[in-house]
């Protein structure tokens, strides 16, 4: 191995020192300098500036999670579509085809989860689907 020249690491080391130093200094500085007048409202967890009425830990239906996940996926799709729309003239038909394919894949996903019952608020379709699945699975097993 050639002789190790550690000076190339100097910027990284400096960066490291800066990062650690900055966070430590700002933490302590805030503690030293900031005025402190605690009131019951101020020590509550911050929630849009409104005093919370009840504890945040409460059960909520897991189906919100599914909707949120679908929302994120289509949210991201819109981000990509904006980039394409901004340079529509340069990309031409090729861009249209590529975005069409991309959108098709997303819609196909939507069709799949829809048919699987992900958008049903009260689960009848999902149940039906799973019952059909269980029956088919049983048929498979007896056939095997």
């Amino acid at each position, binding site marked *: 191995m050639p002789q190790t020249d550690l000076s190339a690491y100097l910027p990284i080391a400096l960066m490291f020192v800066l990062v650690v130093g900055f966070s430590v200094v700002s933490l302590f500085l805030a503690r030293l300098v900031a005025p402190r007048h605690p009131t019951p409202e101020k020590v509550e967890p911050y929630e849009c500036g409104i005093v919370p009425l009840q504890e945040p830990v409460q059960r909520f239906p897991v189906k919100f999670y599914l909707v949120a996940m679908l929302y994120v996926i289509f949210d991201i799709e819109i981000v990509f579509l904006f980039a394409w729309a901004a340079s529509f003239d340069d990309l031409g038909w090729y861009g249209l085809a590529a975005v069409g394919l991309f959108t098709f894949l997303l819609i196909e996903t939507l069709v799949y989860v829809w048919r699987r019952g992900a958008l049903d608020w009260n689960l009848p379709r999902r149940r039906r689907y799973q019952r059909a*699945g269980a029956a088919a699975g049983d048929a498979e097993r007896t056939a095997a």
Partner: protein
Amino acid sequence: MNGSLTFLSVAPEIALAAAVVLLLLVEVTFKPRAWAWAVVAGAGLAAGTALSAWQWVAHRGADTGTFWNGMIAVDGFAALAGLLVFPLAGLGLMSAWRLAASQGRRGAEFIALVLLAAAGAHLMAAAADFIMLFIGLEVFSLSLYVLAGFTRERVDADEASLKYFLLGAFASAVFLYGVALVFAATGSTTFYGDGGIADYLAGTVIFRPGVLLAGLALLLVGLAFKVSAAPFHVWAPDVYQGAPGGVTGFLAAAAKVAGFAALARVLTAVLGARADDWVPAVAVLAAASVVVGTLLAIVQDDVKRLLAYSSVAHAGFILTALVAGRGGVGDMWFYLATYAVQVLGAFTVAAAVSGDRAGRSPLAHWAGLGRRAPWLAAAMTLMLLAMAGIPLTAGFAGKVAVFRAAIDAGYLWLVIVAVLATVAGLFFYLRVIVAMYLASPEEGASLPASPAVGWGARFVLAVAAAATLVFGIAPWPLLEVLRDALPL
């Protein structure tokens, strides 16, 4: 570049993705019986294999190149990866077929995930840019994370999936940081062509290589995690033990193939000019893997866990080929291909013995298997002997090939360590064989129901046994062919 070849360069991925889309649409539209899944998946994998075979014939030595602005490479390396990964995914599906069929309507998702993993694995091998390599890595890894926890009834499968995901995501982040540092040092994420990393490193004397070396180290760590080389192996035993039995074989085999394909291209082709820097690191990783894997396998009482530690040791043996740089790539492919089939076969037997949804496979389940299921025991014996490196099996030929490559590269100490580990490894492989043939089940022990083997699993075992024997007795033709499977 030639326009028509542009799309043909990613045709295997397109075929697999189309099969996935079709499979899911057919599934929700017609709710077909399981054989319809098999038809779609088989067609996709067959198309991928055929396209890779065409790439192999047309673009093996000559007429190679990169496409999509240097994102995808068409060469013998990528073509061979396809020829290995797609049939392996097919065998993995057959091995896991009963598991998939027992999942009811979710079985289609299971199959789709295996196909996506295969597409991602091939993309990893064909990528000619770090960004594309990372996309392939994520497509591949995300599919495997889900597969590892596919059954819902067991907590340890969830645990395996979550552990795999968290540690895998961490390793991906390390890999990405390495990419960023290499980019900082070379000014490119593309491998080939003018201004690519290989070009820059070959033509430039770097006086302050600190950033480049740090990046190289992080790349090595990220990929060593994926192939479960020590000391980045800690996830492997828990994941292999917790994952449902039917899918563990595919998990283990595919992860090795994809990870080593990426590792071999990045190290030998892209960073080939810095071989003096990474070869010692790879040699140390290889030695650590064979030693740690072998020693920890000796104390295991669970066959799936034992196979996991043995796979750590095998990662070390395969790394041994890479210390020879470009000259060792063919030997690496031989070892990788034969080992992938062996490990798939071994886990297929484990799934039959302990149940294909079960996680654990304690040695007690194997007691007296030679009498209860002689064919299964015989197949397992062959796989274990091949992994141990007994002559006339492909495992022996592979070990000879990688050891010779390392000796040619001047790494005698590494070969001595590896040979000693091979000898010590005989102990734990024989321990399973002894349990199968000489031990009888304990009185009152609750064995799982008598081993059930589906037709798919039988086919997998037949292929694995045939490949192990044929390439063990006559390895030269394959070794010759694989010399052409070089990256650009």
